[in-house]
């Protein structure tokens, strides 16, 4: 089975929006979106269960996003494809889904795996958008994924509990961050990642003329002030301090 895992590089540490461009500042160190590590892990487990197949990482982002992809390669993915183009900077959801779908079409994977959401934009919207462009079934919030006879069986969580959904391959699935515990790359994995293929493609390479975003950012504002927030040490007096606080707030 060929599995494509869509991953994203997100800024590491404290994130900020650049006041000039009103875009997320991506100039600093980047990290693999933590939610995507679960997607990579699930793909590795599916591949290991069958003992064959290929895992290709598909991403869009600045050229240095290859560093984040290398971390996923060190976990065990086989190769990486990065769509990187100045014209793609600041692409919104609908534009990003268009470019990613084109890159995925080129791969023709049996299964496309996403993490639950992006750690920077908190969006959980890309998988269903990409699935629509690819005209493939999609299942989100997967808590358990099994594969047999060209079909995927997914246990997934909604507001009402757990659904079980079946979909034929090829399909798109977005896994929750509770589905597995991502492995740490081994030293061998880290060394091996350096020689795994990492391709960088322009928009033209994937047959995209230009990307048009349909949303914009008008202004950045400070969050509304919230009441006093106190922080105390959890020493021997902490429990008493909590009780005093609750009494002061009249909630006990």
């Amino acid at each position, binding site marked *: 089975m060929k599995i494509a895992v869509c991953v994203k590089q997100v800024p590491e540490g404290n994130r900020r929006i650049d006041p000039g461009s009103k875009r997320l500042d991506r100039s600093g160190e980047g990290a693999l979106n933590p939610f995507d590590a679960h997607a990579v892990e699930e793909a590795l487990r599916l591949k290991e269960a069958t003992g064959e197949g290929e895992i290709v990482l598909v991403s869009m982002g600045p050229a240095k996003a290859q560093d984040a992809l290398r971390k996923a390669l060190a976990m065990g993915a086989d190769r990486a494809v990065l769509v990187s183009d100045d014209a793609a900077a600041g692409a919104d959801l609908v534009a990003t889904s268009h470019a990613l779908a084109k890159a995925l079409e080129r791969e023709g994977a049996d299964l496309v795996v996403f993490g639950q959401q992006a750690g920077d934009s908190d969006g959980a919207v890309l*998988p*269903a*958008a990409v699935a*629509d462009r690819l005209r493939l*079934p999609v299942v989100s919030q997967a808590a358990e994924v099994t594969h047999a006879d060209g079909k995927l069986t997914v246990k997934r969580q909604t507001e009402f509990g757990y659904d079980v959904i079946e979909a034929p391959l090829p399909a798109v699935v977005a896994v929750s961050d509770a589905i597995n515990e991502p492995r740490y790359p081994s030293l061998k994995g880290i060394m091996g990642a350096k020689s795994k293929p990492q391709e960088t493609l322009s928009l033209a390479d994937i047959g995209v003329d230009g990307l048009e975003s349909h949303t914009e950012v008008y*202004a950045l504002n400070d969050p509304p002030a919230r009441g006093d927030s106190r922080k105390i040490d959890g020493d021997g007096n902490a*429990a008493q301090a909590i009780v005093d*606080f609750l009494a002061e707030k009249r*909630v006990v």
Partner: protein
Amino acid sequence: LTTLVFLEHHNGELSKGSLGVLAKAASLGDDVAGLIAGSGVRDLAAEAGKFGAAKVYVADDPQLQAPLPQPRVDVLAQVVRDKGIDTVLFGNSVLAADVAAGLAARLDAGINWDLTDLVEEDGRLVGKRPALQDSVYVDVGWTTEPRIALFRSGSFDPSESGGSAEVEDVDVALEQHSTTARMIDQAHEESEGPSIEDADVIVAGGRGLGGPENFTLVEELAKALGGAVGATRAVVDAGWYPYSTQVGQTGKTVSPKLYIACGISGAIQHKVGMQSSGVIVAINKDPNAPIFEFSDLGVVGDVHEVVPKLTELVKQRKG
């Protein structure tokens, strides 16, 4: 504006979240339409009328029985095109997020998500979007129509206006790819014990408890305070505690007078389910846990030490 609100329903009732969005849409001025998609759902249209819809499009078809997103994308795309809808609004849910995103791709339409408000400013629609763990509030907009907006859970309360809606049936024509995913077993909400949504006090536990056996600490504190027990998704998925107690994006949205978070880091998925609580107390040994950023009182310490002592003191006080 010609606004359409996606009206989600469960067990024969329209969801509170989508009725809240309907109230918001109606407050923007023009007549608002709602869309109900499902099987045997025609009676819900009258309910939508009472809550502010002037018109309700009903897609009633056995193929829409299961709450799967892709058939709903087909229905919405057709209505938006045929009726010249310029703005489509959704209250967030697992289903609504997938439908909204699929619709955005289908129509090549701009989508803004996690909005907490929508206002008209300088003749344009502006969405209010808390971003980066709510550290910055971003004003967002759309450059083209139709606009798609997905609102954070609990952003608006429903408002019963007592009106009635004109009902229009819409034909259901599904695309091939939309019918290939099949619901094998649909979730049934467990209904044992009182719902935590009604509790005045919630004591919730997360992974920081260390193991399912330590939930007794949380239970005892909840009992002492006369409250209910909540849990994070991580511990529910790990099987430590039942799903019916889960607070957060795919669980319950709660707003008790007091919320005590024990060993909970405060990931955004959890936060959206409890941030409107009156007083929030967090106990966590990691001083950098995000939960401290939205707690009224943060205690940097070990839940295994602090919580039992707290339970004792509360008992003494009440005793």
